[in-house]
């Protein structure tokens, strides 16, 4: 090795060294700078955000959760402060939070928090990318920036791998059913073209039959379903009152519409789990479940 | 009144009635023979309306019984009673509007089967009844557009139509009874006269037996041959008009001093109130 090479080496290394120092200083600064802005007592009325907080390691900073939160297990012991329609302001205040996560439609509650001088983190229902972005934001608010970035990145990477896996298969038309009247196909409540459910279907290698409807939810009639002619019907439910055994015992109500391809090819599925309906860090896992349902051969 | 019970067309035998344990009628006996015209007199709250409803079989007495042609009312069906006995209530207010003919035709209900419709015979009958009460020219008008007096006469026509026999029914009402609850209250003098004339005509021509309640002592005096004075649900006097309608009875009934005289021109009794007793 001569001096010229050595210099070049030094210059290469110094570039990296310089970058490393900058990065370290910046992270330290963000930590230090954020020290005053880190929320230590968080009340979260949004289950998705609660999951995110636990996933990024900020679980100990959560002091109150929504009535409907069920994941992870640690939340079971935390005090519940109500939900979207009925936030219990007294309970929230009694927990002395420094940050309250509210839905951006809960205008009354937001106003009351602002009056109490308590910081509010606004949540809006959105697509998957909104969810990962929110994870990052939460990371900054809770002083878990790096972990948050990792979690978000993991989700994105996993989603990308799913997309790649299923990319070479033809995309079936999918009807994603979120709810309906029991034992019948009345009052079907399905995913529209906006929102994380639609994103999940797309990432899983399917085409939402109602992708053209610019709404999160659609209520198709029997005629609407027949006209949409889905190749696959997936019914998803959160756990809770409807146990998995109940769904499997139900006669296939979709047989009434035998002209749709999903019924003819016997591609009607029931999936349950809170991971399917909460746009939180488990969304990639949920997408994988969808992908395995749509393209089983891609996962052999 | 010494009248054999078997002669009686409609009689109430010692009936009593109470509403929510408050006695309204106590031990009242009314006997109406065919062709009688009986007036029930008494102040407000004396039980006149209740007595009429008992006589019509609309309510059941707590004790005692009411008989029509010797048969107890509770043993006769509603329709059977209605074919012989009609009641003209004090007021008739319709919620939905019907024409005068339709109101008159309602009187034919008891003569028709549930699913049968009115026939030409029924239409002829109501035409006659409207004629008798002087309301035929109102036949196609809406009931609600009539004056109080016209309404009352239409309802009387309807009650008459109810009592007319029809060829479809073998049970001919030979002795129809008409009960009227204060037929002239809230009517002006002209209509009072007209109604009195109609009722007289009914007594005479159609041999309808009448039992009516009224405030108007003079109206009763002019029309009825027998009077029953009711006070707080009890009879204080009953009998022929001349012997019942006296100044003492008026004082007992209404608590006022009145002069009871014979009116020169009409020959009827006239009661003129003078002062409080």
């Amino acid at each position, binding site marked *: 090795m001569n001096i010229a090479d050595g210099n070049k080496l030094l210059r290469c290394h110094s570039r990296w060294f310089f970058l490393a120092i900058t990065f370290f200083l910046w992270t330290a600064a963000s930590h230090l700078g954020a020290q005053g802005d880190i929320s230590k007592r968080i009340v979260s009325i949004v289950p998705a955000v609660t999951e995110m907080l636990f996933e990024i390691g900020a679980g100990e900073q959560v002091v109150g959760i929504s009535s409907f939160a069920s994941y992870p297990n640690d939340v079971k012991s935390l005090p519940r402060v109500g939900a979207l329609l009925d936030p219990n302001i007294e309970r929230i205040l009694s927990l002395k939070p420094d940050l309250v996560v509210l839905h951006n439609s809960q205008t009354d509650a937001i106003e009351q928090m602002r009056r109490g001088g308590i910081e509010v983190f606004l949540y809006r229902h959105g697509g998957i990318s909104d969810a990962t972005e929110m994870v990052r934001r939460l990371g900054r608010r809770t002083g878990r920036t790096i972990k948050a970035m990792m979690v978000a990145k993991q989700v994105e990477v996993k989603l990308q791998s799913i997309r790649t896996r299923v990319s070479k298969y033809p995309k079936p038309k999918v009807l994603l059913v979120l709810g309906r009247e029991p*034992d019948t196909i*009345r009052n079907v409540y399905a995913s529209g073209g906006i929102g994380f459910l639609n994103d999940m279907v797309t990432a899983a290698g399917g085409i939402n039959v109602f992708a053209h409807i610019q709404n999160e939810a659609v209520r198709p009639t029997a*005629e609407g379903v*027949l006209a949409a002619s889905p190749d696959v019907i997936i019914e998803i439910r959160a756990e809770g009152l409807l146990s998995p055994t109940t769904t499997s015992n139900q006669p296939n109500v979709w047989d*009434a519409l035998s002209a749709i391809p999903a019924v003819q090819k016997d591609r009607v599925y029931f999936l349950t789990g809170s991971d399917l309906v909460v746009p939180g860090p488990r969304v990639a896992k949920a997408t994988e479940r969808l992908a395995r349902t749509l393209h089983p051969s891609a996962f052999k | 009144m010494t009248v054999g019970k078997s002669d009686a067309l409609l009689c109430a035998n010692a009936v009593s009635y109470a509403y929510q344990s408050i006695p309204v009628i106590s031990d009242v006996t009314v006997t109406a023979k065919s062709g009688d015209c009986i007036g029930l007199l008494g102040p407000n709250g004396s039980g006149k309306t209740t007595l009429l409803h008992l006589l019509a079989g609309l309510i059941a007495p707590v004790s005692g019984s009411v008989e029509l042609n010797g048969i107890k009312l509770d043993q006769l069906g509603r329709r059977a009673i209605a074919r012989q006995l009609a009641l003209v209530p004090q007021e008739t207010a319709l919620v*939905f509007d019907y024409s005068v003919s339709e109101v008159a035709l309602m009187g034919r209900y008891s003569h028709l089967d549930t699913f049968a*419709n009115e026939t030409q015979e029924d239409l002829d009958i109501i035409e006659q009844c409207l004629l008798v009460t002087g309301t035929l020219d109102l*036949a196609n008008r809406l009931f609600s557009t009539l004056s109080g007096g016209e309404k009352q006469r239409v309802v009387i026509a309807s009650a008459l139509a109810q009592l007319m026999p029809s060829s479809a029914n073998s049970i001919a009402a030979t002795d129809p009874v008409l009960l009227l609850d204060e037929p002239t209250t809230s009517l002006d003098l002209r209509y009072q006269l007209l109604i009195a004339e109609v009722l007289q005509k009914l007594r005479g021509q159609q041999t309808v037996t009448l039992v009516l309640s009224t405030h108007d002592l003079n109206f009763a005096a002019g029309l009825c041959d027998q009077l029953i004075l009711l006070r707080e649900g009890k009879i204080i006097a009953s009998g022929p008009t001349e012997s019942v309608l006296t100044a003492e009875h008026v004082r007992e009934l209404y608590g006022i001093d009145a002069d009871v005289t014979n009116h020169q021109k009409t020959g009827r009794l006239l009661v003129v109130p003078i002062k409080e007793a």
Partner: protein
Amino acid sequence: MPTGLNHPKAAFSYRSYSTLIALGLAAVSICAIGPIIGPTPINWRAVFDRTIPFAENVDAQIFFIARLPRSIAGALVGAALASAGVVLQALFRNPLATPFTLGVSSGASLGALLVVIIGAPLAISGLPAVPLASFAGAVGAISIVYVLARSRRQGLSTSILLLSGVTLNSLFSAIIMFVQYLADYTESFQAVRYLMGNLDVSSYTPIVWALPLLIVAGIGFSWLPRALNLLTLGSTGAAARGVNVLQTQRIAFLSASLATGAAVSLGGPIGFVGIIVPHIVRLLLGSDHRLVLPASAFAGAAFLVTCDVAARTLMSPLELPVGVITAILGGPFFLWLLVRSK
């Protein structure tokens, strides 16, 4: 006496029969148009093409599964609610009485929502849980109201009927609110949408189950018309003319409640049909119930099918709940009624 001019007109003549027949035909025609209209273009030849197996014939399925039962249900529900409205207005001697006055519809809604929100699969021989629970709720409400109103010695008290109905409405509505509160977001939304009415039966089963109830109610209705006419005079006046008032009230109450319960179990609580249609029919045809009752049934069927078509096409491809359409028509109608009656 000028008899010629003022000869009483025959009350219920052949003219009335021909009016009813004409109305009936008109109603059937309007209801027949219902399945023809819809957001999806249909290949009509394919619908009736027997060579295509039904299980694969999308056009046939759209017509026979999605649209036809819907129109039939609309006609039945419309006829039932309108007839029940006529009968109840006569029973209560009140032009503002509706089939929902007696607490029947809120009882039916409570039954339905309990099933929707708790999600219990209770299907019995093909009949889905919601219509079943809905009807059970209706029967429960009817029984409570009837027992309460019967406690007086003098038969059926209409004022107690009315009060019990109103009280029951409030009670059931409160319970419905509570049940909705327990539900999660999706279920709440479903509950709210249920309460707006939905004729998309997409199957003949609920219709087949509702038919016997409607037929029984219809038999009761056929017995009533002249008695209802006389009931207008008041119970004293009617009884004096030979009407068995208690029996009439019982039959009226029970058949109207049965019809309403069946209607709500088929299409949810669709309001205003029971008050708009009887009023317009009375306005045009007079008050004789022998004409008004069947005419209202026909008109109610045509009216609701038309509202359903409007619900499907006004904001196509989105669908409005049919109860919203009837409410949009009904609200101003009520106001007009009030103003007119002054």
